[in-house]
């Protein structure tokens, strides 16, 4: 297959950046999107040009490193896929593909398609944990957890922290990401003691980082590679109200 690629090139955070057009030929339909970029980069290296920088590592949709806008869609064509899961057979031969980094103020571009997502880590540091000292845990089966709750917690915990929810949201909101963590812990008995502080601190940090508010657009759910449901946002809102209420009471 062949493609015309319009790729965002930006040397560093201060460079204004621009699109550059490249042609790639002889791409196997079974190649992944990133393997197609490997082919392009190999050619660029051979020509002595700087290859396109992009983050990636596991290449099986679990580490959350990869992520780019392809023709305006976070992680490109297909549902429930990270960019590394996308296969070239999902595009038409000869198609034009516009490839850009995540666009969101809290995720500044580092180089080309690489963005800085440390804002997510800082939200986690603010409260995305259960405080248990190493060695202080009770026997694992001491507290049963209803299977339905455990399963729903697992659904939420599947988030890979890629940031597609933010990139696809017109407000650059991080609500789906935060909701996934808050919801996971709210569903488990182990998460109860810190329930109030957790949601408050995470939301506070989220606001501090400059993520926008949620206006129920739901683009996040549609583009999330792990299919995290917006019902978790509803739970997050309830948790937040509950926390505010108990604090005032």
């Amino acid at each position, binding site marked *: 297959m062949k493609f015309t690629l319009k790729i965002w090139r930006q040397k560093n955070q201060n460079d204004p950046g621009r699109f550059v057009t490249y042609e790639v030929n002889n791409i*196997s339909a079974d190649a992944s999107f990133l393997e197609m970029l490997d082919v392009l980069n*190999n050619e660029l290296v051979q020509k002595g040009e700087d290859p396109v920088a992009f983050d990636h*590592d596991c290449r099986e949709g679990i580490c959350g490193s990869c992520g780019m806008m392809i023709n305006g869609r976070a992680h490109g064509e297909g549902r429930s896929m990270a960019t590394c899961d996308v*296969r070239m057979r999902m595009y038409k031969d000869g198609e034009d593909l516009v490839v850009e980094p995540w666009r969101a103020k809290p995720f500044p571009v580092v180089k080309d398609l690489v963005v800085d997502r440390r804002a997510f880590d800082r939200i986690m540091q603010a409260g995305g944990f259960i405080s248990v000292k190493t060695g202080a*845990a009770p026997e694992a089966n001491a507290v049963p957890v209803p299977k339905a709750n455990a399963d729903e*917690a697992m659904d939420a*915990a*599947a988030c890979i922290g890629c940031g597609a929810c933010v990139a696809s949201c017109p407000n650059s909101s991080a609500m789906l990401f935060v909701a996934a963590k808050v919801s996971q812990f709210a569903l488990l008995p182990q998460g109860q003691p810190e329930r109030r502080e957790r949601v408050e601190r995470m939301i506070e940090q989220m606001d501090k980082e400059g993520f926008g508010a949620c206006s129920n657009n739901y683009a996040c759910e549609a583009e999330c590679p792990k299919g995290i449901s917006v019902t978790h946002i509803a739970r997050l809102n309830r948790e937040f109200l509950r926390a505010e209420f108990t604090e005032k009471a």
Partner: protein
Amino acid sequence: MVLNSNIPDGPIEKKWSEHRFHMKLVNPSNRRKYTVIVVGTGLAGASAAASLGEMGYKVLAFSYHESPRRAHSIAAQGGINAPKNYANDGDSVYRLFYDTLKGGDYRAREANVYRLAEVSGSIIDQCVAQGVPFARDYSGYLDNRSFGGAQVSRTFYARGQTGQQLLLGAYAALSRQIGAKTVQFFDRREMLDLTVVDGQARGIVVRNLRTGAVESYVGDAVVLATGGYANTYYLSTMAKASNATAVWRAYKRGAAFANPCFTQIHPTCIPVGGDYQSKLTLMSESLRNDGRIWVPKKSGDTRSPSQIPEAERDYYLERLYPSFGNLVPRDVASRRAKEMCDKGFGVGPTKMAVYLDFADAIKRNSKAWIEEKYGNLFDMYHEITAEDPYSVPMRIYPAVHYTMGGLWVDYNLMTTIPGLFVVGEANFSDHGANRLGASALMQGLADGYFVLPYTLGNYLASTKFASVTVEHEGFRETRASVQERVDRLMSIKGKKPVSEIHRELGKVMWEYVGMGRTAAGLTKALKLIPEIREQFWKDAKVVGDPDTINNELEKAGRIADFLELGELIARDALHREESCGGHFREEHQTPEGEAKRNDKKFAYVAAWEYTGDARTPKLNKEPLKFEYVKPSERSYK
């Protein structure tokens, strides 16, 4: 070089607790005065850094990832072992110890393996308390499944994403400490060398991958948790960036490298598709619980699987190993798959694959039942191959997956350089010549949560430290040598992209140092690898600038190290004139084609010592003694 394993005296069940009792302790109020450097924040590093930070040490943690949550551990699928005996099927610490030692083909230390089994139960407790959503049954209690090499159900899992959930648990614990400022995390930093001062590991030199700056950090001890080196083979199931640079640099600074040839080939991966391919995708071994492996009885059969009647299928693992069947250990399953394909029974377009069939399990239970257990794995297979595994059997083939070898450590996880500790896949310690499924996550977390925090404290409490800053001569020298190497890579200005050279190395490794090894093949590899290395330093093309993100420069440095390590793997494989676990020398097999160990000559750990670039490394031996489990032929019949 002296190899002292420092295994404590006493009966095996008491060694660890007595050892802990005799350790020197650092008074909690003094811990702040010690700085511990942790390189790598996968399962082993994140759990270690979080625990040490919580205890009050000043911890500096480093990773080439931007976030600890991206570490390769995230990709582990199947599960983690612990002998909780919730299934009431006769499991115990002793049985897990026995299975792991036997699974490793009697090439690991009894005392280490026993300790691993002993602390593994606490890992599950810890993770549940952190909010790890392990699978549960309808009663609300934890569920288990079985894995290769065991006849009991002791594997805890979180769908097909166990590594992800455990890593997110450790990452959360680490995040809490970063928030509390006990741990400082340095992201996008790649350790390129170790600084040794007065014989003690005192710090590291890293390259800041955003800016290209070469930075140094001083500590009282250095912990490497940098993962395995399977990417020496180019195609493997490892994450693309996984590499050996940290351990290799430490080796060159005096840490012994143990059993490098013990590499694991995983039996159930998606077969290679084409030249563009950048990595191999694993299908969790847990699939062998419900999937049946077969090939057509007729060689060269081109019919589609549905047209091959039951009577014309060879379920060869069930035929050869009636008691373990599809659940034989990885090395056995891999070798048998290769043998079937070599004999012409392979299936699929390349004929380098065997079937893994779920039709019976779907009939016995239901499609929904399979979906609940393995849904995400089936989706992944479907995405990659465009075939629906619910209706067509999967095609699988072995791929390089894990490295049992690594830096030599004593019982305290310390290398031959005082103050340099190694945890997780990067050390050689517990899996002998073959690792059983669901045991790497267990070992990484055992090291990080429950072993290192004690042994490191003992080291700090019993050692005197000179005051050292980054201006010390030792640091200057390391910085200069790191800078010199970066400059050298940037100035080769050859014609070949470094990935192509890596691929060439990978081909040699897979062909001659892969699943079936021979003296002739290994000798050939020992000739070819230095040739590729020479070509690399002459003809590699490293483009871009050294002062921004430069993936090509990063890759080049890692490949340069693989080109040296690859040679050591081949050398070790050639010297080990026996077959054991993942190391299969074709000259040494039983008439039935099973691995034939030579306990008289090779019941030792091979610890290689660096003696200079132009000289062959020196082999040191740590003899292995078996007081509790008598080595026998590892039979799974």
